[in-house]
């Protein structure tokens, strides 16, 4: 007979209708601005810039190498490279971005900039409430808005941040080894060349030690 | 001028408009529309004569119009399906180009 399935379906929707008034468990939605579901760790939407230490201007990991700018498919990144070099968080002299803008209205959250960055300077954020009254300016994020501390990165993506820090520390360790070897070689050469001159202690080495300790704590 | 002649004049005008359309248009559908218009002008005459003529209680004019509307509907249905069939054959509804029997 035609219509059995219709009656069954109608009964089901009626059960849902009345059930949702009786049983709060049935309601699967949350009332968003007041109630929020906990974010899962893999959440990611727009990129931000990581800095080490306390001062965001000094500690930016970005060396304005323009790789992310070139790789960005919708071309939403704009970088202006500095003329001079400043010491970074490690103390090494580096170029730094004078301007680093991301147009969030253009960004498509593809994460390619994160993947190509050799310095682990750009990472994905979880902030999504970015709406603004200003249609063009409000969505063009400058360096100051993009810079977020490494602690923040640890907070939003703990596993990933720990892995990044470990890799960075390992790199620095290697570099330290290399520098040590280089220094040793240089010292040996120097010793061989001029035995009279005394070996000065390499200042950069101690600095690296201090900052890497600070980072991992 | 009596009210009846007003209606009759209107009907005559509609008939002439329909006739001119049926004679001058080349699209078969529009020719059919012109013929419908002429039919309707005649219907208006029937209703006007029923309203102002003798013996309205016999409802002759009304009945005539009801049947006429029925026939017009049938005519429109058959006519339009003929046009669709012709279109399928000739790929056009232009009456000047459908001249197979002209010799």
């Amino acid at each position, binding site marked *: 007979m035609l219509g059995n399935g219709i009656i069954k379906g109608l009964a089901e929707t009626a059960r849902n209708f009345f059930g949702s008034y009786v049983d709060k468990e049935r309601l699967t939605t949350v009332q968003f601005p007041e109630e929020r579901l906990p974010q899962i760790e893999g959440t990611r939407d727009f990129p931000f810039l990581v800095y080490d230490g306390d001062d965001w201007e000094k500690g930016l990991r970005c060396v304005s190498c323009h790789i992310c700018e070139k790789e960005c498919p919708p071309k939403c990144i704009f970088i202006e490279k500095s003329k001079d070099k400043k010491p970074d968080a490690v103390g090494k002299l580096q170029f730094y971005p004078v301007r680093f803008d991301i147009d969030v209205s253009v960004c498509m959250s593809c994460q390619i900039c994160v993947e190509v960055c050799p310095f682990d300077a750009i990472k994905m954020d979880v902030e999504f409430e970015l709406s603004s009254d200003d249609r063009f300016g409000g969505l063009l994020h400058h360096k100051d808005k993009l810079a977020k501390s490494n602690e923040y990165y640890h907070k939003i993506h703990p596993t990933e941040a720990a892995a990044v820090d470990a890799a960075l520390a390992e790199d620095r360790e290697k570099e330290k080894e290399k520098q040590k070897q280089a220094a040793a070689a240089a010292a040996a050469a120097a010793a061989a060349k001029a035995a009279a001159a005394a070996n000065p202690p390499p200042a950069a080495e101690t600095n690296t030690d201090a900052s890497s300790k600070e980072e991992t704590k | 001028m009596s009210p009846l002649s007003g209606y009759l004049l209107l009907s005559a005008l509609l008939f002439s408009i329909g006739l001119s359309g049926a004679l001058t248009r080349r699209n078969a559908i*529009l020719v059919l529309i012109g013929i419908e218009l002429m039919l309707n002008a005649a219907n208006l005459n029937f209703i006007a004569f029923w309203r102002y003529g003798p013996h309205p209680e016999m409802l002759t004019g009304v009945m005539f119009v*009801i049947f006429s509307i029925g026939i017009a509907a049938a005519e429109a249905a058959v006519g339009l399906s003929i046009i669709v069939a012709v279109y399928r054959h000739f790929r056009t509804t232009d009456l000047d180009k459908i001249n197979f029997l002209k010799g």
Partner: protein
Amino acid sequence: MTLSFLLLAAIAILGAAAAMNLKNAVHCVLALTLGMAGLAALYLQLGAQFVGLTQLLVYVGAVAILAVFAIMLTRSRTGETVAHGSASSRISGALTALLVFAVLAWAIFTGISPQQLSGAQPEASVREVGVALMQRFVLPLEIIGVLLTAALIGAGVLAIEEKGGDR
């Protein structure tokens, strides 16, 4: 010659004239619908309620839609629908129509004597129409029924697409 008559007559003439003169075939059908609606309103004004509403139902609801469907199914490949014939055929057609109108108008103005006309508004209730259909006009009704059935079948047969046709 009341105001309502003039208004409705203007609508009917406007619709009819537009239907016969516009370029686009769909516009023509829409204008025809306007004219038919005006005619239906004239029937209502004359007291023939059933006929007026039937006119509306048949012409606005059925014939206009049928014509529109036919236009959609027969759109010429070159794009817009064809307009008018050649200038000579237009002029001769318009002259013929004008001549017919002149003859009709002459007949109307000379033929009617106002004494024969009745002024009272006659009644054509649905019940009376129905009784008349079932008693005096039962044979025409049957014939119309047969005709409509034949038209239905015929239209279907004509419009149906043969299997393996040239499509």
